[in-house]
């Protein structure tokens, strides 16, 4: 693997709410390398989006706060940068696209207007040059008649087109890292295929690293080199895509895989299902946070937090019993009892 681009270590991001402190991300470490396609998978409340916002330093004070941690990006700790320095990195070197492109685009300005503004903010170019770069960027994301589209307002475009605009905007300054937070969740499946195809094509071309945040294991399977599975603000498991899908060590990952319906096979038996729901992150209990839902839990799980351990070749899992559990029945077969 090539040189590390982004190194997050021991990140903790908490939110203060009326009910108490939400430990949204609670001690997370990972590395993304240059040009890597890194998938972050988890359910709602797993902390995957908060991780992304923490990297972008977009956590809103005073409710949210990065309590501890370091985020090294190309050698400098983003958490130690001043606001002005961070602003220069945001958009230029790390770009982000969101789930809902309608809320990410300002409805009262044209596409061209917003695109040119982003470009001029980060590149030393004249307006006319910025317009040309903008048209080129729209052309790169295969928007027909880019010159005409520059004058469109966001509501005149379909959801898929808007997401293309967001990608064009994100990639217009040639960032080293693109963070895509559920970029296709709001889109129809045929549009999703278009957008994923486009993202892969453009980022491969430019050797841009991508942090793809999604709840859909199917999406990461075709897109990512490595996957990180998160649960309740912590790491559950991380490894190469193939390894995670074929040899998971963690009951949660196995449960997710086992509970998915698949296009390519008929499963006459019942699906495996993980009982219960993700826990509240206000005053979470000690030990492994998956314990109440885990079919393999034992006494130690409720009292001692399993630290992520490496099992060789970049494969990490946070489970007391990894790699000894027999998860094969969870991944495919009927659950007994």
């Amino acid at each position: 693997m090539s040189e590390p681009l982004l190194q997050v270590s021991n990140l903790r991001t908490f939110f203060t709410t009326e009910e108490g402190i939400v430990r949204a991300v609670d001690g997370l470490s990972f590395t993304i390398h240059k040009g890597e396609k890194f998938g972050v998978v988890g359910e709602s409340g797993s902390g995957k989006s908060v991780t992304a916002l923490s990297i972008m330093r977009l956590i809103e004070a005073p409710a949210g706060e990065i309590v501890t941690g370091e985020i090294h990006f190309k050698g400098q700790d983003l958490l130690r940068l001043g606001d002005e320095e961070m602003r220069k990195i945001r958009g230029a070197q790390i770009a982000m696209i969101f789930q809902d492109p309608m809320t990410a685009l300002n409805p009262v300005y044209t596409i061209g207007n917003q695109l040119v503004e982003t470009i001029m903010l980060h590149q030393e170019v004249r307006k006319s040059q910025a317009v040309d770069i903008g048209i080129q960027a729209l052309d790169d994301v295969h928007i027909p008649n880019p010159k005409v589209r520059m004058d469109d307002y966001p509501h005149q475009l379909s959801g898929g087109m808007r997401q293309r605009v967001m990608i064009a905007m994100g990639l217009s300054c040639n960032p080293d890292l693109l963070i895509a937070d559920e970029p296709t969740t709001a889109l129809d499946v045929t549009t999703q295929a278009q957008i994923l195809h486009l993202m892969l094509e453009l980022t491969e071309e430019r050797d841009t690293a991508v942090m793809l945040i999604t709840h859909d294991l199917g999406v990461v399977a075709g897109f990512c080199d490595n996957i990180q599975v998160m649960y309740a603000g912590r790491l559950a498991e991380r490894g190469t895509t193939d390894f995670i899908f074929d040899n998971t060590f963690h009951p949660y990952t196995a449960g997710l895989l086992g509970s998915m319906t698949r296009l390519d096979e008929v499963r006459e038996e019942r699906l495996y299902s993980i009982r219960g729901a993700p826990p509240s992150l206000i005053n979470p209990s000690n030990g492994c946070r998956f314990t109440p839902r885990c079919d393999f839990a034992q006494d130690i799980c409720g009292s001692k937090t399993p630290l992520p351990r490496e099992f060789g070749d970049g494969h990490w899992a946070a489970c007391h019993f990894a790699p000894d559990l027999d998860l094969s029945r969870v991944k495919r077969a009927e659950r007994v009892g």
Partner: protein
Amino acid sequence: MTDRNLPPGDGYAALDEAEGLTVEPVTQWQLFRSRFVRHRLAMMAAVVLGIILALALFADFLPLENPTDQLEDDNGRIVNLLSPRAEYWFGTDELGQDVLSRVIYGGRTSLTVAVLTGLMVATFGTLVGSIAGYYGGWIDTLLMRFTDLILSLPLLPVAIVAAAWLREAFRGREALSLAILLGTLLWGTLARIVRAEFLSLREKEFVEAARAAGARDRRIIFRHILPNALSPIIVNATLVIGLAIILEAALSFLGFGVRPPEPAWGAMAANGGRLAVGGSGAWWLVLFPSVALIVTVLSVNFLGDGLRDALDPTQTIERR
């Protein structure tokens, strides 16, 4: 019975734990209370309003002078224009009436007008708004154009003309006439709010579920939609109460409200103002009714703010 994901052994307890369900259920009332109590200003306002209301309600049982009696000293002289002192806390006016007693009894008049107005507005606005919003179509068009008409009336001129006419018709019951007048003029805003709520709520899936269950229109409107539109109704009604107190005072001030000697804050302040301009220096005649009015209106508005925050369903502790 097939496996319903019940963990073996402890069954439902383990299931609830896996779901992260709290042991004690939290009722809506508890949620409302905990949010409201956190709203300090609204809490204070509620206490102040409670005191004012209690005074007005139980004025007859308090050791007060009769508000319309002309008080005399031991020598039989009328004690008019006395400044505040131990016997007369708020002083006396030019006719020798006790200002403290008049302020308290005046509160009774003002609050009666305000509360009646609030009730009328809540009833009428809710009815018009919910029918327009639920049925839509030409009913909606008709009702809303009528609402627009009411809303476009210039409030004070119309109120003055109507009040002048009504106080003759309702001689002796001016408070009631004022309430009817203000109620008729002020329901438009609430009708619009309720209509908007109904328009969005009637598309909600839980309303569709009620229709799928076979529920009739009346049940859907009153059992399913209205309770969910309650918070804007309550909040708006509170604000209307505040507004009604001010308008009642304004009309009394202009001489179209409650007739003397019946006490009312607006009329008292107006009268005191005239005397003060006349060079009497009787500041207490203006100050006490005005302070009573301001404190009441502020409290009502703070209470409205607090209710809005406490009733806002988006502030409910939602699980996602």
